[in-house]
C-alpha cells in the first residue's frame, strides 16, 4: 500500500466518511473509490454490496482477483446526560473503539473535571444536536431521567438515521414517554425504535454495570438482525 493511500484512508475515517479500497492481489496496485463514484466503476456491483453490508470481499474481474476493503466511520455514542453512568461508559466505549460525545445543559454535571478528554457540550440538546450530524453510525443514549432534557434529544434522534436509540427509566417512566411522543404524532413504528428500559436485561445495578449493559445492547443492535440471528 502506498503511504499516500494509507494517509487518505486515515483522513477519510477521521472525517467520518466511508471509503472503499480496491487492491489487485496479483501486483498490489490499488485505488481508493469514493462512495459517490461507485456507479461508474467497473466493479460497481461488488463495491455497492460491500458498502451496503459493510463487509470487505475478494472478487474476480476479467480473470484477475481484487480485494475490496470497505472502511466505515468509527461508531459514535452520543450520551445525553453527564451523569455517573456516562462516566463509566466513556472508558468502556473507548476500549470498544467507539467515539463518545456528552451533551448536558447542567453545567454542574458537564464539567471537564468529571469528563477529562471527552467532547463535552454543556448546552441544551435541541440547540447542539443539529450540528453534530447524527448518522447511521451514531448511537443515541438518553440518561438524564429528565424529560426537559431527554425529550428534545429523543425527538431529534427519532428523525435521524441513528442505528440505536436507548432511554433510561422504568417501564412506567417509558410508558409516560410513549404517551408524550404519541401526542406529538410519532408513529408506533418510530416509537418502537427506542430501547427502553435501556440495556441488556442482565440485572445490572451499579453505574458501571448499567454502562456495560448499554454497550452490550448497542453491540447487539450492530451485529444482530431483529430476529436475533447474525447479520
Amino acid at each position, binding site marked *: *500500500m*502506498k503511504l499516500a493511500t*494509507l*494517509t487518505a484512508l486515515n483522513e477519510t475515517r477521521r472525517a467520518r466518511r466511508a471509503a472503499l479500497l480496491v487492491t489487485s492481489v496479483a501486483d498490489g496496485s490499488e485505488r481508493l473509490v469514493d462512495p459517490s463514484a461507485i456507479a461508474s466503476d467497473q466493479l460497481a456491483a461488488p463495491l455497492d454490496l460491500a458498502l451496503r453490508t459493510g463487509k470487505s470481499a475478494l472478487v474476480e474481474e476479467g480473470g484477475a482477483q481484487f480485494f475490496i476493503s470497505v472502511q466505515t466511520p468509527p461508531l459514535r455514542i452520543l450520551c445525553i446526560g453527564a451523569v455517573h453512568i456516562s462516566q463509566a461508559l466513556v472508558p468502556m466505549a473507548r476500549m470498544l*473503539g467507539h467515539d463518545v460525545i456528552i451533551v448536558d445543559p447542567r453545567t454542574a454535571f458537564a464539567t471537564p473535571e468529571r469528563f477529562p478528554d471527552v467532547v463535552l457540550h454543556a448546552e441544551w440538546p435541541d440547540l447542539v444536536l443539529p450540528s453534530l450530524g447524527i448518522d447511521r453510525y451514531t448511537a443515541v443514549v438518553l440518561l438524564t431521567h429528565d424529560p426537559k432534557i431527554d425529550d428534545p434529544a429523543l425527538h431529534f434522534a427519532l428523525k435521524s438515521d441513528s442505528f440505536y436509540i436507548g432511554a433510561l427509566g422504568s417501564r412506567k417512566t417509558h410508558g409516560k414517554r410513549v404517551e408524550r411522543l404519541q401526542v406529538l404524532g410519532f408513529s408506533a413504528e418510530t416509537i418502537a425504535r427506542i430501547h427502553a428500559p435501556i440495556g441488556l436485561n442482565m440485572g445490572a445495578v451499579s453505574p458501571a454495570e448499567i454502562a456495560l449493559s448499554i454497550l452490550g445492547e448497542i453491540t447487539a443492535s450492530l451485529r444482530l438482525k431483529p430476529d436475533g440471528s447474525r447479520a
Partner: protein
Amino acid sequence: MRANDEDILASAEEWRRAGRDVAIATVVETWGSAPRPVGSRLVIDGDGNFLGSVSGGCVEGAVVTEALDVIGSGAPKLVSFGVADETAWQVGLSCGGRISVFVEKVA
C-alpha cells in the same frame, strides 16, 4: 488502546512516517470456522513488532515472518493457512478453518 482494524491503519501510518519499515497483512478470504473475519489486519514493522490480529493468535507468528520477507523484497504476496496446508501442524488454525492473507509493504 488500538481496538479495531482502522485504528491499526493509523498506527501503520505513524510508524511509516517515523521512518520504520512497515507491512500490512489483511485477511482476504476465509473458509469454514475462521477466528477473524475478512478485512482483519495485522501491521508489522521491520523488527517484527506487530499490532492487531488476523487469526486471534493461531498464525500471527508465521504472518510476521512472511511480512519481514515482503519488507525485504518489496513484492506483495498471498499466503494461506489452514488444515489443508502442509504446515498445518506448525502454524495451522486449531479451529479447523482456513484463511488467505494478503501481505504488502507500505511504500
